[in-house]
């Protein structure tokens, strides 16, 4: 059996859903960010796989994957800075305990 586009898409779908599960069920803000990183990785697999199988002559997909990696790094930097700020003022990084904005 040959490895084709759908194989990669299936793996990336599973990875995406694992990440989504993490985002939905974790209390710890850092763990939620880790879930988001998994989801971004899944999207990158898609981009590179589409590049390889649907437009093998160009490098557009890989270029976009690099941009996504950049954005993931920025997102992690700012998101984790927010976590640090929340921890310093509220003494917790559990999102269900951060409730000062509720009223």
């Amino acid at each position: 059996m040959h490895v084709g586009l759908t194989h990669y898409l299936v793996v990336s779908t599973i990875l995406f859903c694992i990440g989504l599960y993490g985002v939905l069920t974790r209390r710890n803000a850092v763990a939620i960010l880790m879930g988001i990183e998994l989801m971004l990785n899944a999207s990158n697999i898609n981009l590179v796989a589409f590049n390889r199988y649907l437009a093998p002559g160009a490098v557009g997909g890989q270029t976009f994957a690099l941009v996504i990696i950049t954005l993931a790094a920025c997102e992690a930097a700012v998101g984790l800075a927010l976590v640090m700020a929340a921890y310093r003022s509220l003494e917790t990084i559990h999102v269900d305990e951060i409730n000062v904005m509720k009223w």
Partner: protein
Amino acid sequence: MGELAAFIILACVTLIPAVVVVTSGNIVRSALSLIPTFLGVTGLYILLHAEFVAGIQILIYAGAITVLILFVIMLTAGGTGTRIRQVNEQVPLGAMAAVWLGFLILLVIFRTRWPYTATPAPQYNVASIGTAFLTDYVLIFEVTSLVLLVSLIGAIIVARREE
């Protein structure tokens, strides 16, 4: 045959630690499990002949983002919290949402007729990516540096507040 075996191994290396990432009760173990996941994805990039993206994946994801995450865990007492409940009340709901979304995406994947092109085994190299960034995608390239600047300044402001 060899390719399929490599693919299956890499898929396992990617997905099994990913499950540990989202289920482990110990946040440091979660963060460290990210590394095999990222390295597995690196392997998938290699199977897709995207060597440069693979190198960047190791450098940025495994070498930089994971370090950042570990730093924050260690600075926010997360490392000691092995007995703290890590999941909220939405576990069944979250699992249902993830499975349902996965089912939908898989449906789309198998229903779509992908416009395959017949060109076999492309030879990607760093030079073509560099050329793409400096010619076709130059706007993205310059905007990226603006995004980096903004996130650097924003993160410094947020993290240093109250000093």
